[in-house]
């Protein structure tokens, strides 16, 4: 579904990604871990099409197409979803208005019929249960006055609503208490399916206790230095990223 080849990206002339390679197939859940400043969030943003980042080298193939050639809204319509680390507030625009517009934009793109208010509300009622999101929140302006936990739940709720093929979760666990973390993780698990792939960017291993990944990759200094199964996450928890980095240094010199 997604193939990243030798991806280099920089912001304001600083190279953040220095040759990332990653293949994600349908049905797989990949976790990308790494220390602060390793480029995890940059990778997520570049895949979603944030224009602040300049791709200087490499390519990204998504469903057989050049992802980097697509505008951010086209990527979204084609099924790329980013759960933001810091969801922005949009004053004056209600969640319901925003989501229905987004949903219908995606549906139009897919050649599906647009949803009227009734159809939309029915869908919302079903999907909001996934993350136990209070429907009342949807009457408020986008993310305005949402607590940290509500914002993150809202992101997963939107993911459920838009049914993306590829979901990228950027530090979805940050700022969540243990109960909220469980709810969000349960929500994500319910959305796992053979047709969908997920890339979970996280700093800590604890999210992976709830969302068990098929693959774990360690990103350090803009490169994936180690890949493995879910047990790699536990290893990292014990050794820290320094251990992995040292291992890489040894591997490189030998």
């Amino acid at each position, binding site marked *: 579904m997604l193939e990243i080849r030798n991806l280099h990206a920089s912001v304001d002339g600083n190279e953040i990604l220095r040759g990332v390679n990653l293949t994600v197939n349908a049905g797989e859940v990949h976790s990308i871990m790494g220390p602060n400043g390793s480029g995890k969030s940059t990778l997520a943003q570049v895949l979603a099409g*944030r224009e602040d980042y300049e791709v200087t080298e490499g390519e990204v193939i998504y469903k057989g197409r050049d992802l980097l050639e697509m505008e951010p809204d086209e990527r*979204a319509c084609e099924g790329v979803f980013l759960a933001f680390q810091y969801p922005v507030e*949009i*004053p*004056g625009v209600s969640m319901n208005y925003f989501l229905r*517009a987004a949903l219908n934009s995606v549906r139009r793109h897919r050649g599906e019929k647009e949803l009227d208010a009734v159809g939309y509300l029915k869908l919302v009622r079903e999907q909001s249960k996934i993350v136990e999101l209070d429907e009342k929140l949807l009457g408020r302006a986008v993310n305005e006055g949402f607590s940290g936990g509500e914002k993150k739940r809202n992101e997963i709720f939107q993911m459920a609503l838009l049914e993306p093929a590829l979901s990228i979760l950027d530090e979805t666990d940050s700022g969540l208490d243990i109960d909220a973390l469980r709810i969000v993780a349960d929500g994500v698990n319910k959305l796992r399916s053979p047709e969908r792939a997920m890339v979970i960017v996280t700093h800590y291993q604890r999210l992976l206790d709830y969302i068990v990944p098929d693959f774990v990759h360690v990103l350090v200094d803009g490169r994936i230095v180690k890949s493995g199964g879910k047990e790699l996450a536990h290893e990292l928890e014990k050794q820290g990223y320094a251990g992995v980095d040292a291992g890489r240094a040894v591997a490189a010199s030998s």
Partner: protein
Amino acid sequence: MNNIPHRTATNSKTQTQNSELRTQNSVLSTQNSELPHMSRATPETDTLQQWEQSTYKYGFYTDIEADAAPPGLSEEIIRFISAKKEEPEWMLEWRLKAYRHWLTMEEPEWHNVHYPPIDYQSIIYYSAPKKKPQLDSLDEVDPELLRTYEKLGIPLEEQKMLAGVAVDAVFDSVSVATTFKETLAEAGVIFCSMSEAVREHPELVRKYLGSVVPYSDNYFATLNSAVFTDGSFVYIPKGVKCPMELSTYFRINAMNTGQFERTLIVAEEGASVSYLEGCTAPMRDENQLHAAVVELVAMDDASIKYSTIQNWYPGDENGVGGIYNFVTKRGKALGKRSHISWTQVETGSAITWKYPSCILIGDDSVGEFYSVALTNRRQQADTGTKMVHIGKNTRSTIVSKGISAGRGQNTYRGLVRVNKGAQGARNFTQCDSMLIGDRCGAHTFPYIEVKNPTAKLEHEATTSKIGEDQLFYCNQRGLSTEDAVNMIVNGFCKEVFRELPMEFAVEAQKLLEVSLEGSVG
């Protein structure tokens, strides 16, 4: 005793750095380019540039042979206008008095708009379509005119069918079509052109014309008093609720013709009326002066709601050719518990200079001002309101939303004055600015003068910008940048749109979208 302390409760929240808000004669000026976080040139800038360069959709020109006065202004011209309109002597005298006063006045310079000097002698002060039909039905209207309205999306045919809307179409200074007159006449409502009112209802016009905006009021209002060519007159008798929304579409058309509309609305005791005014103008090369005057008078328990959508031609990317819109609008809440409400959506004109105001004389009278002003390209707007509290327990509400894009400059200027006798006066002001791109500006000049210690005033102000973050978030959910901008701007204006009559709210939203339109993405 002379030094009664000014009491103001100020509650201001400002989201922008570099800005400061002082309540008394204060200046809140946010030049977007000064914001540190805006200095970075990002691809967003390109997108926004494209978006800013959207063209004026209503740029077309209807050729109806005009019967015009020679350019220039003199007593002869004023006599010519008055004669053309078959006016009584007192009307001519009033015009001449205004003209003579105008000659002693100087054009104001205190506003925050800049334009080359206006040559008042090169303006044509009267022009009328040659055909001046006495109309019984729309069939008699010049088909060219009907086509023009169709292009505007407001065909009279459709207007006529729209339940409850009577249209008095002012075209090139002369009313050529009036509908729904019978229904209104049955209710005792007078709704006609100002020219007709001067001839048919001279006693009413004479009593109220200039009673709110005197002929000597200000430079542009005085000019209007001397040369006004037409406008609307509305009279709602005692106890009558006007059975339909009244609306007028103004339109500038003949070359070099300044538009000097004069509107007067009088609501007698217990009467109520909702008046809608909307306009679009065709594309043209030369600047056009538009100096209208609107006067409202509300007696005891009367209510007047005046809604405007203004979309005069704003000029091209370089600001060439747009309309100069210098308007004086004022309502006198004369009676007890009277209510005057202004709602405006200002998206057009190269220059907008306009302060719809309320003089709250009657005890317990209420004044309201809801405004959306959008400046794009090189448009400049200096707009706001004056709320003058004279009666006891008078209340006023001001909600102003300024949107600046392109190289637009948007200024809010508002005065809240509480006179000595205005025991228990209250005002709430909310003044929000939105910046789009990094070359526009938003300025706020709120003036507060309080001479009664029981007054309660609140002032809230915010400045925000449509951020790259917000656009990216919307994009990431599948929305195009254009849709996202429209959505965010509409959300920002919601509190004002809510005040518009239903069909106008839809039009306003459409108009904002057109004004914001551009090939994005």
